[in-house]
């Protein structure tokens, strides 16, 4: 496992070594610092130092007397010093008295350039393992697993990837054998890793046996419940809503009437906050019209939702109008359906995780974006998962998804203030996405996430220009994350005018805003 990792550091070492050879064959830079290391030994020393770092980061070890009792003869000879340290500390994985629920922490580790520095977090036990994605790229992100379940965790991931490889090669007999072997280790693995592995194993099994649909059919109201729990338990949806709202507020700052088309009304959780902000606008609130688009399964629910929002609007003094649009798929939307009033209203189109399912059918996204462009919105807010789960090659998708959902599950795991029911439901919610990404194909596969860069290209070719999200959005997002628990894991990142929510430096959600790149845009109210 450490193979490719070592190879990279060996390459680095050799390149450094070649540059710095002198008569004694000592590394020049290190000798300037007082250390004597032979250039040829560099790789070896690097590896030993890494191992040492890992061992020393374990708190138990620091308490032991071994460190005090060790006698070193020539500390400047790094190679033998490191070796002495390692043997003194009896380089074994530390003791077994860890809290099982915190055993497994799964974090992606960004690429090999940072191999010499560990993450700053020393309270949780993390051990670096080496790239587990054996795809063609040379630098693959590394997955970190908890100390205790190190070996089983590694084997689990290896087994999953091996199974996916077999599926990729259409060797279904092998894949079947492998997936059967993953089942119980996955179930017995504690923490985020175990849960992720279980879902991926199930997804692989469904793919191998061609079980359709990809995930068990559920009542639409259950889907709603799952999403509500996901909303409560982690900041992803809230981040999406708040950031989009901020972009909307900035775009309608001087409007007397606002019309928002929400491409996925769901529970309407985004709109109370927007209405409140409109109510508190200096100079008074504009009128607010909301057109909520939903699927046929939501049926009556949309109307009831409208009533609820209307009540809220009345309570806070915002003139409100609601219309629900039920369509089978977003491409069924036609501009006339929105009944826009361009003379009196500023139009906004909002899409929170609604664009990627449209990619399932070729040509659909172009049609949808053309429809959106035709109604001439002042701003289009788009929030999507920051991942490429839409690659043509299955194995690539699999690896990306494994990485992505491991991060996501890890973020759920870390927050101590999340009540367990919320978390369980959130995991089920995400699990269904996993099943879809891995097991489904064709029009069935709707979780076709694409990265912000990919969306930028699509929006660009559809005739939209990016709108930068202001610093207000950044500040709001940062505050929201501060309130959301999960410690320091969450970060807001700015990416060329768009915002990303990251967990432990891995971006997971990207929020962006767009306007129609049209000359007549300048005369729009």
């Amino acid at each position, binding site marked *: 496992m450490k193979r490719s990792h070592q190879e990279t550091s060996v390459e680095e070492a050799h390149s450094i070594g070649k540059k710095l050879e002198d008569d004694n064959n000592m590394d020049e830079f290190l000798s300037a610092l007082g250390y004597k290391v032979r250039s040829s030994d560099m790789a070896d020393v690097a590896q030993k130092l890494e191992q040492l770092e890992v061992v020393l980061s374990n708190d138990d070890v620091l308490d032991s007397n071994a460190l005090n009792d060790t006698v070193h003869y020539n500390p400047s000879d790094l190679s033998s010093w490191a070796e002495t340290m390692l043997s003194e500390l009896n380089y074994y994985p530390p003791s077994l008295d860890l809290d099982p629920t915190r055993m497994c922490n799964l974090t992606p580790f960004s690429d090999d350039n940072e191999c010499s520095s560990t993450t700053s977090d020393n309270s949780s036990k993390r051990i670096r393992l080496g790239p587990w994605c054996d795809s063609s790229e040379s630098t693959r992100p590394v997955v970190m697993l908890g100390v205790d379940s190190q070996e089983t965790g590694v084997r689990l991931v290896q087994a999953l990837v091996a199974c996916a490889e077999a599926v990729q090669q259409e060797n279904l007999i092998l894949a079947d054998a492998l997936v059967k072997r993953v089942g119980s280790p996955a179930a017995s693995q504690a923490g985020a890793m175990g849960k992720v592995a279980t879902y991926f194993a199930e997804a692989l099994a469904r793919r191998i046996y061609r079980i359709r649909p990809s995930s068990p059919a559920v009542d639409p109201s259950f889907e709603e419940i799952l999403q509500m729990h996901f909303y409560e338990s982690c900041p992803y949806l809230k981040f999406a809503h*708040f950031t989009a*709202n901020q972009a909307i507020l900035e775009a309608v700052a001087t409007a007397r009437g606002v019309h928002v088309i929400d491409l996925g009304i769901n529970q*309407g*959780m985004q709109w*109370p*906050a927007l*209405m*409140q*902000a409109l*109510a*508190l*606008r*200096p100079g*008074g609130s504009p009128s607010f019209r909301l057109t909520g688009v939903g699927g046929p399964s939501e049926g*009556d629910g949309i*109307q*009831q939702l409208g*009533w*609820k*929002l209307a*009540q*809220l609007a009345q*309570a*806070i*003094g915002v003139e409100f109008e609601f219309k629900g649009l039920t369509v089978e798929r977003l491409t069924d939307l036609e501009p006339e359906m929105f009944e826009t009033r361009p003379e009196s209203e500023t139009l906004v189109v909002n899409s929170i995780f609604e664009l990627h399912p449209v990619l399932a059918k070729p040509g659909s996204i172009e049609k949808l974006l053309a429809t959106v462009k035709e109604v001439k919105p002042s701003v289009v807010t788009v929030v999507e998962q920051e991942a490429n789960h839409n690659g043509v090659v299955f194995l690539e998708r699999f690896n990306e998804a494994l990485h992505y959902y491991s991060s996501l599950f890890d973020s759920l795991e870390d927050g101590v203030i999340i009540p367990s029911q919320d978390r369980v439901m959130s995991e089920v919610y995400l699990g269904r996405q996993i099943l879809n990404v891995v097991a489904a194909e064709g029009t069935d596969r709707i979780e076709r996430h694409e990265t912000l860069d990919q969306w930028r290209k699509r929006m660009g070719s559809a005739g939209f220009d990016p709108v930068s999200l202001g610093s*207000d959005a950044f*500040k*709001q997002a940062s*505050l*929201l994350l*501060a*309130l959301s628990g999960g410690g320091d894991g969450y970060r807001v990142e700015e990416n060329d005018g768009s915002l990303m929510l990251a967990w432990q430096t891995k971006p997971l959600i990207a929020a962006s805003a767009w306007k129609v790149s049209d000359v007549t845009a300048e005369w729009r109210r």
Partner: protein
Amino acid sequence: MKRSASNSVTNGDASNKKMKKTTEEDSEIGFANLDENLLYEVLKHVDARTLATSSCVSKIWHRTAQDERLWELICTRHWANIGCSQHQLRFVVLALGGFKQLHSLYLWPLSSPNQHGRLGKDELKLSLSLLSIRYYEKMNFTKRLP
């Protein structure tokens, strides 16, 4: 006023002098029996923590310290102007649950990490958003389709 009343009583019966004296002391500790209006005026100047603690002292104090106007002062005292009028803010916040709730649920947790509990524009905006969401979640809409 109370003192002169007890004085006139003391002037009377000498055997009850001790009892009267304690009554006198009680009335001097009469801060606890402070007139509600006066109490309100005093509480206008305290910080959030003090105001919250005050509501635990006695029934009268509780009633006074729960006053929305006092919490409105706490919420808006240090904030940078978010642009809307006081009246507008009051209307919306009271509709969504009130200043006391706004403070205890959102402003307080947001301000704790800060030194002086400075509540900037961003903290206030975020808290208002969260308050509105909470209100919405707890709503049981009354109108149903026929």
